[in-house]
């Protein structure tokens, strides 16, 4: 895979209904699952599949992205021949920023022409799954496809916005619609696409010349009748984290031990930027059940069915239920937290009672003091 496949994580106009969670960051760096950022999943998938050259097409609010990715060494993408490339927009002109991903890919065509890999895997950062991409490439070559779309059959609808895909009996994609489309299909696109590098460059140039803006919605979806587009069926866990509802739901799914074992370990481990937090400490009065606890937490109170990120302090008598508390949150003595999402560094004073509802969790922005 090393010299055969390159990866692209495309953050340009990434669907984003994550409300205040993305007020200061892009969806790619929204904290997820106790210690990760969303982009860690696709980045790790690529690395675990043997891809050693990955480009991240940054778009807006990417300061936290630069900080998180650094040199790429936490994903083993810090090496001489290849590694991690962060490609922000080449101009800060508002008109140009609004343009679609085809335009940005064209702007970075030098990056593609300078690469030597035969195939490109293009994906998004808001997709939570653990997938080996090597069989996808094999499938793509075997089918002699122009484009391969990785799909997941989802008989129970999942929260979040996903594209629907329709296959014929030969596995060819004959229909694809955006989430609001009326296509009656239980096949969802994982937003992972495979094609040859030279094919991608040609597609980008032709589509742009015809006035198209977006790679998937325009360039691919308008050419399904002319191109050999095949669907590869992925059977693992799929989370589309692009709405607040799906953010909450997918975090809560990590509290099922079968999901936890799959999403973080199989087929490969998910990597993230490491911090030197000490192990989590459970003090004498701690009562924790059905929860995900990260290093650096100090638990003196009660935590039920919740996700605590690194360095969260749960003081004596505090009760946290059905909630997500991000890095360095503090829940004061005897406070109650139920159905809440607290962004980083939120401090809840003692004796507070904060409750959201099952369908609409209470949301507190970064560094809020309550």
């Amino acid at each position: 895979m090393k010299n055969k496949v390159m990866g692209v994580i495309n953050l340009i106009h990434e669907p984003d209904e994550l409300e205040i969670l993305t007020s200061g960051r892009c969806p790619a760096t929204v904290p997820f699952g106790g210690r990760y950022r969303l982009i860690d999943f696709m980045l790790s998938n690529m690395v675990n599949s043997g891809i050693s050259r990955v480009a991240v097409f940054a778009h807006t609010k990417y300061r936290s992205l630069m900080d998180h990715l650094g040199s790429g060494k936490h994903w083993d993408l810090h090496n001489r021949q290849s590694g991690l490339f962060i490609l922000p927009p080449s101009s800060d002109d508002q008109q140009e920023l609004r343009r679609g991903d085809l335009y940005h890919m064209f702007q970075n065509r030098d990056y593609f022409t300078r690469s030597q890999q035969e195939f490109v895997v293009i994906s998004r950062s808001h997709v939570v799954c653990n997938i080996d991409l090597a069989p996808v490439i094999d499938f793509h070559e075997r089918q002699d496809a122009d484009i391969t779309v990785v799909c997941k059959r989802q008989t129970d609808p999942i929260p979040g916005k996903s594209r629907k895909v329709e296959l014929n009996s030969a596995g060819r994609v004959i229909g694809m619609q955006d989430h609001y489309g009326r296509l009656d299909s239980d096949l969802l696109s994982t937003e992972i696409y495979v094609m040859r590098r030279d094919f991608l460059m040609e597609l980008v140039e032709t589509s742009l010349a015809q006035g198209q803006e977006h790679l998937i919605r325009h360039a691919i979806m308008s050419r399904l009748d002319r191109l050999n587009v095949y669907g590869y069926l992925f059977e693992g866990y799929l989370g589309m984290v692009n709405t607040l509802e799906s953010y909450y739901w997918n975090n809560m799914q990590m509290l099922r031990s079968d999901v936890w074992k799959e999403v973080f370990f199989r087929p490969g481990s998910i990597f993230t930027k490491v911090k030197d937090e000490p192990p989590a400490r459970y003090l004498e009065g701690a009562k924790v059940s059905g929860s995900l606890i990260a290093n650096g937490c100090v638990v003196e109170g009660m935590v039920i069915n919740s996700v605590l990120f690194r360095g969260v302090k749960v003081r004596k008598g505090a009760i946290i239920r059905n909630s997500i508390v991000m890095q360095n949150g503090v829940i004061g003595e005897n406070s109650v937290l139920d159905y809440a999402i607290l962004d980083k560094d939120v401090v809840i004073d003692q004796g507070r009672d904060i409750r959201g509802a099952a369908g609409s969790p209470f949301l507190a922005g970064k560094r809020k003091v309550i």
Partner: protein
Amino acid sequence: MGRKEMVAMLLAGGEGKRLGVLTKDLAKPAVYFGGKYRIIDFTLSNCAHSGIDTVGVLTQYQPLVLNRYLGIGSPWGLDRRDGGMAVLPPFVKQKGGVWYKGTANAIYQNMGFIDRSDPDYVLIISGDHIYKMDYEKMLAHHKKTGADVTVAGLEVPWKEASRFGIMHADDEDRITAFEEKPKVPTSNTASMGIYIFSWPVLQRYLIRDEANRHSSNDFGKDILPAMLRDGMNMFVYPFRGYWKDVGTIESLWEANMDLLDDRPPLDLTDPEWRIYSVSPNRPAQYIAPQASVVSSIVTEGCLIEGDINRSVIFYGVHAARDSVIRESVVMPNAKIGVGARLYRTIVGDGAVIADGVTIGHPDQSSITVVGSDEFISNYKTLLEVEPS
């Protein structure tokens, strides 16, 4: 290489015989401690926080795991263009090479390494101790007293004083006598095995000590007494704080248990003095609905379905349902079977305790050790492994 004011030499060759099966394939400084660390992390982190950027790590016994762990020193900020970490095993020279004969000989054989940085001072530390210390403050003390050597000293309880190398000092902290493990101690200031030497003085004594065929080439037994006889300027640097030599099963277990108090004597959470280590990169730990975790520390990647009280659980441990873990230390990736019970047990990394096995007894004070990667299906076979 640029000039450095002080270079640290970290003695990490300890065989750790008294740690039994835990050091079967492992040098003592690489033994796991405190839920995610190895013992050597503490001294390396001390160097990082004390502004020391040139560290020679002297290895000897079972260096494979340790070498791999240290790498180029990145986790401790020691991957430097100028200085940084160097692992220094005994090496073969033109006239043949020899094993390090003693702590002083290990430094003697690497005088060339130290000279490359042309330092004024050399800090000698050991990778066997758990403590947090700012060596810069000790250096300031060394300069202020105009010492040739400064030895860090700790006041230990009188009843334990006979286990240590004991120092006598006058009111100005000037060392007047040494006693190695005295039967009837007359001072309770123990040497912590941490020395700052003025480099030219140390160099002179190392060469002299090497020429003495009767010497055991040891800092505590030979170098320091020789300097005292010559009336050199020797001072104690009084240290107040937590310090533990984790050279025995009991002390390793105790030091782990010390971390579990609600206000532990050794604070791992201090953001100003983080203990750095090679991070395992595992997901957040999952505490199952039926689990109970109290007065314990647990690390990333654990799947806890059992009942844990007063224990230290390293990363990647699976404690299955109905398991009971009390006053125990469970090292990385160990598996504790359904209904298994551990009392005062140290479980080596990768070990598997089969379903329903009980190790130790709630009323028993002795500590049982299970070696790395062992499979324990029956407590009796274990007793043969490690009679405790």
